[in-house]
């Protein structure tokens, strides 16, 4: 049994390289395992993390690289993750979060990243300042 009322924390920095998208979601899933999640909950979190990290690689850093900061906190079956970049930021967060909205010119992107984060997590909060970066905080209650 995990100790109650004391958060457990994971802090991680990864380079904004596309190959780290898989590393980040798998590392977070391993940390999540201590809450004894269902397979579906693991998939939910992995997908949401993958979307946020991919956004940081493609949009935040425009594919030019930088660092992505992940901070995970678990307490009493509540899972919280913040994924932060110090990239270009988002000028209009509301617009960026609209389903199917994308800035991608070649049409390979769906514009569904934020919609997936919202669908798979209980709560998604985005803070962004143009020129300073973006932080996405997501929460999910894990059934255990």
């Amino acid at each position: 049994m995990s100790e109650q009322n004391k958060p457990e924390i994971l802090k991680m920095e990864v380079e904004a390289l596309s190959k780290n998208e898989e590393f980040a979601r798998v590392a977070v899933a391993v940390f999540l395992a201590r809450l004894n999640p269902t397979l579906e909950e693991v998939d939910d979190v992995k997908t949401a993390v993958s979307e946020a990290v991919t956004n940081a690689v493609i949009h935040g850093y425009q594919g030019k690289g930088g660092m992505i900061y992940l901070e995970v906190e678990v307490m009493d079956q509540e899972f919280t993750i913040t994924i932060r970049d110090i990239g270009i930021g988002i000028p209009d967060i509301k617009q960026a979060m609209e389903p199917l909205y994308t800035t991608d010119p070649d049409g390979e992107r769906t514009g569904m990243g934020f919609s997936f984060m919202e669908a798979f997590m209980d709560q998604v909060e985005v803070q962004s300042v143009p020129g300073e970066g973006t932080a996405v905080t997501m929460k999910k209650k894990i059934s255990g």
Partner: protein
Amino acid sequence: MNQPHFTYEAEGNTLIVHLPEELDHHNCSGLKYETDIILSENYIRRILFDFSKTRFMDSSGLGILLNRYKQMALSGGTVAIYGAGAQALRILKMGGILKLMKLYDSKEAAVTG
């Protein structure tokens, strides 16, 4: 790291694309380029995406499927899927893909149509 992410197989006018274990932005990077070449050099009427090895996909995976669908639809071709597991199936459903592409259980069923 030089392992190909996608492998391709032809069955008449059908192109079978065997997808990787992790269908994300990183692994999808070569697919557009590779399928563009194959589609320009061969007479392909149908693309089958083989999900049997795929354990994870996200919206990046969805994007490449949608684009191949649009590409095929322009020339009157079709796209179908087989072998999708639970995680991929949820993403496919959420992305509305199953309205555009038929879903089969096995390769045999998909090839027969």
